[in-house]
């Protein structure tokens, strides 16, 4: 599967990653090589095989619906890039 630079742009956008224009071709080449490598999976017959998401096939453990965590907002926000009045600041979202 050969990816061209515009497809790389699209994937980068989905992943919210900025890629320098100068590096786009290198990424396209490397990603294409990796995808070509994983194409080997298509050579096997997996009909009737259940996908395995968890190595021990263990279901999600549940716990009682009780409050066990305390509010530690100040501590967690101590190292946040930009906060004010307990809120995280970002550039304006709505015009």
């Amino acid at each position: 599967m050969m990816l061209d630079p515009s497809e790389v742009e699209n994937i980068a956008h989905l992943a919210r990653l900025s890629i320098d224009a100068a590096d786009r071709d290198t990424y396209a080449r490397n990603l294409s090589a990796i995808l070509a490598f994983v194409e080997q999976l298509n050579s096997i017959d997996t009909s009737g095989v259940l996908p395995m998401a968890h190595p021990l096939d263990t279901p999600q453990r549940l716990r009682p619906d009780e409050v066990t965590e305390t509010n530690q907002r100040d501590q967690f926000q101590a190292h946040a890039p930009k906060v004010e009045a307990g809120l995280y600041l970002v550039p304006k979202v709505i015009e």
Partner: protein
Amino acid sequence: MHNKTVSELAAGLRAGDFSSEELTHAMLDRIAALDGKLNSFITMTREPALAAARDADSLLARGEGGPLTGIPYAHKDIYCTRGVRTSCGSRMLDRFIAPYDATVTAKLEAAGAVMLGKTNMDEFAMGSSNETSYYGPVRNPWDQDRVPGGSSGGSAAAVAARLAPFATGTDTGGSIRQPAALCGITGIKPTYGRVSRYGMIAFASSLDQGGPFTRSAEDAALVLGAMAGFDERDSTSVDRPVDDYVAQLGNGLRGMRIGLPREYFGEGINSGVAQVLDAAIEALRQLGAEPVEVSLPNAALAVPAYYVVAPAECSSNLSRYDGVRFGYRCDDPRDLEDLYKRSRGEGFGSEVKRRIMIGTYALSAGYYDAYYLKAQRARRLIADDFRRVLQEVDVIAGPTSPTVAFRLGEKVDDPVTMYLSDIYTIAVNLAGLPGMSIPAGFSEDMPVGMQLIGNYFEEARLLNLAHQYQQVTDWHLRVPPGLE
């Protein structure tokens, strides 16, 4: 002191031959003198280490404490350490001071171990050579022009260079076992769910597992015993008591069946590595074990399946790094989209970005079935092969790495070649089985590791086999030239 094992140091501390404070000082001085060239540490925690050592000495003086009380160690910078920078080898977390301790950090502290500092690693645990770290590459103590392996390269180098008697690592596709092999030390990745992942910065949640680096299987049994255990705060942690790994070290090997997969010993194997493995297997035969040829027919699917599953999971896990709540934030973002893209684009290195993009692609609309689900089906085939074989044999053995440590820069420009460094280790993570690497000899003057793979929760059997092997061989006692 730096040549003593954990159990020798524990005996020395209890006997009063030296104090933990003296031992910790000695390790800190040794690191200051030697680590400039190796670059195995990112952050040193000198004063807290000395304070912890003094606390350990008080405990020991009262006749209290356990096997790790007062023992210094190096901690992979992937584990959160409260109040101490936790960088994960990345610019993204270069200024991140963890607000809490990982469970592994807390358990080792409770056991009285003394953290010397945080070790260097491939960025976000993605790599097989410790060349992707924001903090520069780590060098192999056996040959400084070669890589130590990755992603836990710093921890492996620190133990091999005798800068710490033990270190912690994590292993998603081989990141404990492969550096252990390349650096001539012992490393074990336990069964998935055995060690808590709470506070262990996530790369691929269905594959990640924490474990120790040591210079002997006996030491690994001690440290793993302290690291392992059920944790409420890790929803994938398994509620099963921790075996007494030390108690089983002395079991004889007579009748133990050791499977040798023909796919691991086939045509492409490096001849130097093959010779070392042949001698190691003969040594096991002399100890009473019975080598048996077995087959893992889907072995060749492991690396391709992993390089769909792991990037997919990483693309999801690394979406939390958005420049908003913690971590790197770009300067002067134009708008929210620019904030996300440039914080992530500037904060992550190229290997991380590559893997996020592969993962995003594999999970995207129209490709999910063809890539991700297909890989998960291949994963089941791989796991089923192991289950079948482990009904006939007790342990599977083979090389840990296809080659000895390669030169710095040799594979950085070719991701697929780099990925094939993990050809023997990756399947073990996909299946969730425990795997271990122990020193088995040398080729081209560089260490060669033998990998041992066990059945679910049979870490004790692996440690037992390794310990018995280490009673009749001395590979694990060899020291890198100049570092005696």
